[in-house]
Structure formats: C-alpha cells, structure tokens
C-alpha cells in the first residue's frame, strides 16, 4: 500500500429526475405560443373567419358585448339558474347522502334508488319538468338541482365511509354520545370528500344550465351561444364559450378558497 488513494474512483450519481418540479413560466409560454399561432393563422387567411375567428376578433366581440350590457344580462340570467339550482341540489343531496352515510337503514333504502337514477342524463328529464313546472325558470332550476343532487349524495355517503373507523371507536371509548360522534368525528372527517364532490357538482351545474338554456330560454349564456351559432356570428359564439370557461375557472377558484380555509389542518 504505497499509494493509499490509488484505484479510488468516485461513485457516479444516478438518482434524480422523476420528481415533478414547478416550472412557473412554462404554462404562460404555452398559452402565448398557442394563441400567437392561432392569431397568425387567422391573419394570414389560413383560417376562414366564419368558421374560426381570430383571438383578436373574439376579444373584440367580448368587449362589445360588455359595452352594450348583453354580456352581463346573459351571465346574470345563467347565474340566477345555477345558484339556486346548485344550492337546492346540494342541500338535499347532503341531507340524503349524510343520512345514507350514517344510518344503515337509510343506506339500504336509498342506495338502490340512487344507483338506478344516477346514470340518467338529467337533461333528458327537462321535457318532463317543463310539463310539470312550465317553460319558465323553475323547470331549469329543477334540472340543475336534480343533476347536482345525485353526485352530492354519492360523494357525501362515500365521504362518511372514508372516515377512519378507529376514530369512531376512539370516540366511543371516551363515551361520546352518538350525536357528538356525528358532529365532531363524522362530519369533519367527511368534509374533504364533500368539498371534492362540490367540484363535480359545480361542473354538472354549469353543463346543465347551458343545455337547459339551449332547449328553451330567451336569455342565458346557453341561449346566447345557440343564437349566435344560428346567425353564423362565430366570434360572438366563441366569446360566449370563453365566458363559460371563465365562469368555470372562477367557480373552481372559489371552491379552492373554501377548501383551503375549511381544510387548513391538512
């Protein structure tokens, strides 16, 4: 051993990678590039404006709709259907879903009915609801409420199932009455699942309001988009679609805020 370091070789690094790391600029660049390409294709005449208006034309249409007040008129009409429909569907869905999550007999009674009715596309019930409630607002609100009700029931009772049994046993071992176990263990434990369900039901509500307004309404984003399509006003049509996308983003941002404040313990 005359040369102690002889023959030593450093070990090659072979870890790293395969772990998502944030790249803040990338999403913006992708957006900018896609819209830029689209605008370039439109400006060069590659895209016929009647079938695919340019981003600039859509923004212009949006601006005009904003100026003459039609945009807010339609958005307000849609919100007046979504908000009560979602609240009614959610309240009823939570009541039924939590009952099914907590009481075995409620589950036994409710599960077959919910399973049978859940897969029906609720828009198919609009004609019946129009027959019962008339062509006005109640039938549209009821369609949204029905569409929101079933996913809420399912998310509420499966959220109850996901509350760890050991926490309930713990509460029983300290002598908590059943009412307290529901209020202090089951409901807070089910909250993440319930809030996740809100995201689904909110997107269902948005889908159904557009569909219902396309079937029979003077105002509302769905009606506006349909009319614009019939009049071949493609820029206005796509402006309506953009408004829907913004509405969806706002709803999911709002729910994100609620989740963050209600589930701070996570």
């Amino acid at each position, binding site marked *: 051993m005359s040369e102690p370091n002889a023959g030593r070789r450093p070990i090659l690094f072979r870890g790293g990678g395969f772990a998502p790391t944030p790249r803040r600029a990338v999403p913006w660049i992708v957006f900018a590039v896609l819209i830029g390409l689209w605008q370039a294709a439109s400006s060069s005449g590659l895209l016929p404006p009647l079938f695919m208006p340019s981003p600039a034309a859509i923004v212009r249409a949006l601006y005009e709709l904003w100026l003459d007040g039609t945009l807010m008129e339609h958005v307000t009409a849609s919100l007046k259907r979504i908000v009560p429909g979602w609240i009614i569907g959610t309240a009823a869905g939570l009541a039924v879903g939590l009952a099914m999550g907590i009481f075995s007999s409620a589950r036994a009674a409710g599960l077959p009915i919910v399973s049978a009715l859940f897969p029906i596309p609720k828009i198919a019930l609009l004609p019946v609801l129009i027959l019962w409630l008339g062509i006005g607002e109640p039938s549209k609100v009821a369609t949204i409420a029905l569409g929101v009700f079933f996913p809420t029931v399912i998310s509420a009772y499966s959220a109850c199932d996901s509350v760890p049994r*050991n926490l309930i046993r713990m509460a029983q071992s*300290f*002598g908590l009455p059943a009412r*307290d176990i529901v209020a*202090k*263990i089951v409901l807070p*434990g089910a*909250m993440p699942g319930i809030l996740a369900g809100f995201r689904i039901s909110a997107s269902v509500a948005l889908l159904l309001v557009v569909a219902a307004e396309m079937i029979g309404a003077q105002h509302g984003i769905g009606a506006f988009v349909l009319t614009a399509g019939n009049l071949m006003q493609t820029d206005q049509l796509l402006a309506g679609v953009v408004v829907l996308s913004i509405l969806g983003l706002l709803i999911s941002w709002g729910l994100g805020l609620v989740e963050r404040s209600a*589930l701070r313990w*996570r």
Partner: protein
Amino acid sequence: MPLHIEKVSHSYGAVEALKDIDLDIADGETVALIGPSGCGKSTLLGIIGGLLQPVAGQVSLSGPPPADSLNPFTYIFQDFALLPWRSVAANVALALEHRRLGAAECRERVAAALALTGLSEFAAAYPKQLSGGMRQRVGIARALVVRPAVLLLDEPLSALDAQTRELLMEDLLAIWAREKSTRVYVTHNLEEAARLADRVVVLSRRPGRIREVLQIDVPVAERIRPEHAALLIDVHRRLWSLIRDEAATAEREILDV
C-alpha cells in the same frame, strides 16, 4: 379497581379468536398481555373496555368505579387515533367536552394533562406537525385527562421507532408512579412486558387461551437498576421460550381472517 374476566370467548365468523379466558386483575396492577400475532390479545382488550361484544363470558368490576373518574375504562391506541383537524389541546379536550364540566375546569384539566406529558408548548400544534412520539403523548394526555380507573393500552408503542419507544417507556413509568390506575397492556414486544408489567399473561395462538402467567416480583420502578438486569434478561428469555414456537407457526400461517 379489581377486574374479573370470566370464561370469555370470542370468534370472528368461523374463526375462533379467544377461548375460555379466565383472569382476575387486582386493583392498581399492571398486566401485560402478550402472544404471537393473531392470538386475540387486542380482541381481549376490546372486550374488556366494552368496544367488542364477546360471544361468551363476561368482564366485571368489583364495586363501583371511583367517583372522580369520568371514563373508567380508557384506551391508548396503537395508531394514536387523534383527530387531524383538532389541535393538541382540542384533541385532549375532546374527552371532556361532553362531560358537563365548567369551561374553566376543562381548561385546567387539559393544561394539567399536557404538562404531565410534556406537551404544554405544543398545545396549539396540529397532529401532522408532531413526531410519532409526540402524537402518542397526546394520546396519553387524552387518556389521563379523564382520570381512568382502568387504562387499556393497545400496543401503544408499536408504531414508534426504538429510541422513541425507550423514551416513552420512561415517561409511562414516571406517569404511573403518580397516577393510580389498573392497567392492561397489550404488546408483542417482550421487553415492554418485562419492563412495565407486574404480571405477564402469555396467550397461545388462535384460538387464544391463557398459556402461562408470569409474576415479576421486582417493582416496575426499580427494574432499571443494574442489579436487576439479570432478572429482566431471564424474564425476556422465559417469555420468548413460551411464545417462540407459536410465533414461528403463526408467521407461516396463511392469513384469511
């Protein structure tokens, strides 16, 4: 408070978990239940505290439970069973909130339990912010706050690493020197049994029966003294010789419970 377990048997469906367990536990005694996995030791603990209904037999107390105990049979769980949405203090307070105590007394009791377990400065922390050892200290504080007459410990240190386990064993001994209760301690760790129990009950594998009861005559507080080292080693060796073969068999078993 003396505790009597009489002819207790339990089964899960066709699988017999416990068979004819007879055991008397004296007031203030610490009894360890050990045995190979699947011997029904946790089942027996569940039956003692009224969380499981035995198929046959019964568990009874001599005399009424002490008046100052809010929850005579109180568990400490292997997985801590803390509510993640409650702070440390609120987790401990959970055991008191439904007991019609004044708010001031509640606060006082919680503060005392937190002080006893060294958690005072963590009162506002949430469970996910704590290490495993600190979480189990919350579990211990929550159990002490109701002044249990019988403390039921279900593998309380099994989820902890070896060093934390050692620290918590010391803490338990220090707490037990001050708090008087009868204790049933389920574990598969022979050292915990030899260090903490007055009496070790060895259960056989499925269906669990009492195979042997080993009295350890040196008081628990004195066992860490050097002159008792040989005794602890001997207890450990005897316990191991009692369960070794069955543990080996249980290990090879196909699990279909």
